[in-house]
């Protein structure tokens, strides 16, 4: 715990020093001030504890209680309590028992404490497990008491339920250990199995709300004899874990140096790099591309060469999106076939007032972010070292923007085509006047998102040479756009007005981007 807190305090101070106002305030010597770091660590622990309570309230409120309010409001009070206990039992006893056991979990802190700092594996594991489950009980109890009493349960019932959950989880740790001893396999690393349990578990947790004939454990888990058995099993496991002498092997199995789980940042970095990796053989140019390039010069030559050599990577991005849109066509036509009358009533309304849904669709379908990543990794990371290239930022920005808009326009046109086909098919070939607004909006949004991704790339250049994103403003800007796109899910607005807004926004953003890139990109477009 002390090691972990110390690592977090150092990390927080390190990143705070990167933020301009704090840079002046926090001197480099701060890392040597043990007293100050101890005070910060106390504050940190308090914040973590409060965050734990908040998360528990969010879990109990949103994951367990809200579905009952939403879909089970017609159930009798005691049925609601049983459903609540059922969801809690499935998710917290079983799903989390399989997926969140700590005993064999690969963790950076475990590696640092045992492998690097030579702490005794038994002491580390016993401290970790007792801290985890004491905290589990304490943080879950207030939230469970709150919702439990709302559903008419007595406080004692809830205390027993949470204690049962805690002790079952301790028993699960024992199961993971025994499984490892018997088979040598680490259960939490069996990604397929863990995800299967999670998906099946969540379906099983909520299914009784919709299908009353599906068996539920709610009633059983509230029975005290079963609770006593589970609590006793937990105590048995706790005693076994406290006396266990083979923690060295257990920790060794969970802290292999090259395990990607130990260093998620490195794993993310590798994933980022492999998503844009190319083989030398992919760089072959075909005859027509070579012929075209003969007439090119300067930055147009470079840009055309880049897109010609990376056509496989860029086309793959396009093909994935077109495949998704193709899937939408299949689903749309199937819906027309199955719900003919229902759909013909809904579709005109969607086209009339729900075009804002296109925003979220184009946010996810436009290729900008991946393409800029590929541009950086294969081209700009090297050329940005040269001043001539930085000074010509506006020139290559315009050339690339043209390409990106063309590519995203294909995606937008494909999406508009699919929606048009579904609409026309649903209405026996009748044409809906709003389809024209659909097409214009989709194309305008393709321009908007192309500009957005390339503009942020040139103005904030967020990537490090390892392809990590290291620019908080970039993250915030994208989050704001994501938030606005999310809000669009709930907006109803006449189609022609939305189209005017989409076209206007795209044009304003385009002009703004051209002006700002011309003015600032030669300074901002750099390797961090």
């Amino acid at each position, binding site marked *: 715990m002390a090691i972990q807190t110390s690592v977090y305090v150092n990390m927080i101070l390190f990143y705070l020093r990167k933020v301009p106002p704090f840079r002046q305030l926090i001197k*480099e010597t701060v890392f040597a001030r043990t007293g100050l770091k101890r005070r910060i660590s106390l504050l940190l622990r308090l914040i973590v504890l409060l965050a734990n309570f908040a998360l528990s309230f969010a879990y109990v409120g949103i994951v367990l209680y809200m579905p009952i309010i939403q879909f089970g409001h017609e159930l009798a009070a005691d049925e609601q309590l049983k459903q609540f206990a059922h969801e809690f039992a499935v998710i917290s006893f079983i799903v989390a028992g399989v997926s969140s056991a700590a005993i064999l979990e690969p963790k950076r802190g475990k590696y640092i404490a045992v492998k690097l700092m030579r702490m005794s594996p038994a002491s580390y594991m016993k401290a970790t497990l007792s801290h985890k489950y004491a905290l589990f009980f304490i943080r879950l109890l207030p939230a469970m008491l709150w919702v439990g009493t709302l559903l008419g349960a007595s406080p004692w019932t809830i205390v027993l339920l949470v204690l049962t959950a805690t002790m079952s989880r301790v028993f699960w740790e024992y199961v993971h250990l025994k499984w490892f001893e018997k088979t040598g396999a680490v259960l939490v690393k069996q990604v397929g199995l863990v995800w299967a349990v999670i998906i099946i578990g969540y379906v099983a947790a909520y299914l009784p709300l919709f299908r009353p004939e599906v068996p539920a454990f709610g009633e059983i888990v509230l029975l005290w004899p079963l609770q006593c058995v589970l609590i006793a099993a937990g105590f048995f496991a706790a005693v076994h874990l406290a006396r266990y002498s083979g923690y060295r092997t257990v920790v060794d199995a969970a802290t292999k140096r090259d395990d990607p789980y130990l260093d998620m940042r490195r794993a993310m970095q590798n994933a980022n790099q492999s998503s844009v990796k190319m083989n030398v053989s992919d760089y072959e140019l075909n005859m027509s591309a070579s012929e075209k390039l003969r007439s090119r010069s300067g930055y147009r030559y*470079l840009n055309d060469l880049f897109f010609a050599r990376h056509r496989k990577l860029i086309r793959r991005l396009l093909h994935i999106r077109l495949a998704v849109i193709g899937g939408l066509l299949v689903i749309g036509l199937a819906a027309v076939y199955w719900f003919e009358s229902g759909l013909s009533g809904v579709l005109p309304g969607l086209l009339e007032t729900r075009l804002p849904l296109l925003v979220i669709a184009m946010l996810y379908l436009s290729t900008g972010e991946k393409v800029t990543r590929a541009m950086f990794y294969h081209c700009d*990371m090297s050329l940005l070292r040269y001043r001539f290239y930085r000074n010509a930022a506006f020139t290559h920005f315009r050339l690339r923007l043209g390409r990106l808009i063309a590519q995203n326009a294909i995606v937008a046109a494909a999406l508009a085509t699919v929606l048009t086909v579904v609409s026309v098919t649903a209405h026996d070939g009748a044409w809906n006047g709003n389809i024209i607004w659909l097409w214009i909006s989709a194309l305008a949004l393709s321009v908007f998102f192309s500009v957005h991704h390339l503009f942020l790339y040139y103005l904030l250049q967020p990537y490090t040479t390892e392809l990590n994103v290291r620019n908080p403003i970039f993250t915030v800007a994208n989050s704001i756009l994501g938030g606005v796109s999310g809000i669009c899910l709930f907006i109803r607005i006449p189609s022609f007005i939305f189209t005017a807004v989409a076209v206007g926004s795209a044009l304003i953003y385009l002009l703004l981007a051209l002006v700002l890139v011309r003015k600032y990109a030669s300074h901002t477009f750099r390797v961090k």
Partner: protein
Amino acid sequence: MRLKLEQIEKRFDAKEVLRGVEYTFEQGKIYGLLGRNGAGKTTLFNCLSGELKMDGGSAILEDNGVTRPLAEEDVGYVYSTPILPEFLTGYEFLHFFIDINRERLKPDEVRPIDDYFDLMSMTKEDRHRLIKTYSHGMKNKMQMLLFLITKPPVILLDEPLTSFDVIVALEMKNLLRQMKADHILIFSTHILQLAADLCDELVVLHNGKLSSVSLDLLKSPEMEQSVIHLLKDESDDKNL
């Protein structure tokens, strides 16, 4: 042509890396810049090439009696690890580079692309291979080619010869000797023998300031001891 550094200062937070650097470099000479790890050699190069802003002082270029501040385009910077766009062939990169610099170059200065590769003894096959497949030495030759084309008055080389095999190192040394007549060449290195062998003058960066090693000393057997003495801190004396 001369490059005059006047009271150049650069600090990062509280750490003063360059404390009033002063020196005059002349055309026709190769200067070896020596300094311990973290002494500020790369910082000085970055300040001269415009990658970093100086906190104080200036760099002045004096040519035929006319003086002007050193501009970014006056400086060619050869990185220790050559950084080139690997998706291009050597030929394509040079084609692109000449294209974008065509307006700056006099027509009689631009030679056919193959001539430049011949100058660097790069075979016909090599020049049409992807840079991605080039060796470290070939990549460095490509970097040097850029400066043979644009001919910046000042060329800074950051540890340029340390990872070459003997043949490429010799080729590069000969190339630098050929180039020195038209340029001011400054290269940083840790290798004393290389500095003594190639350089006309040796400059030491220590405690944020530059000082020169005398010409007589450069060729003498005591050179190594004397440079080490210049670079040592008081703390090192206590440790030794």
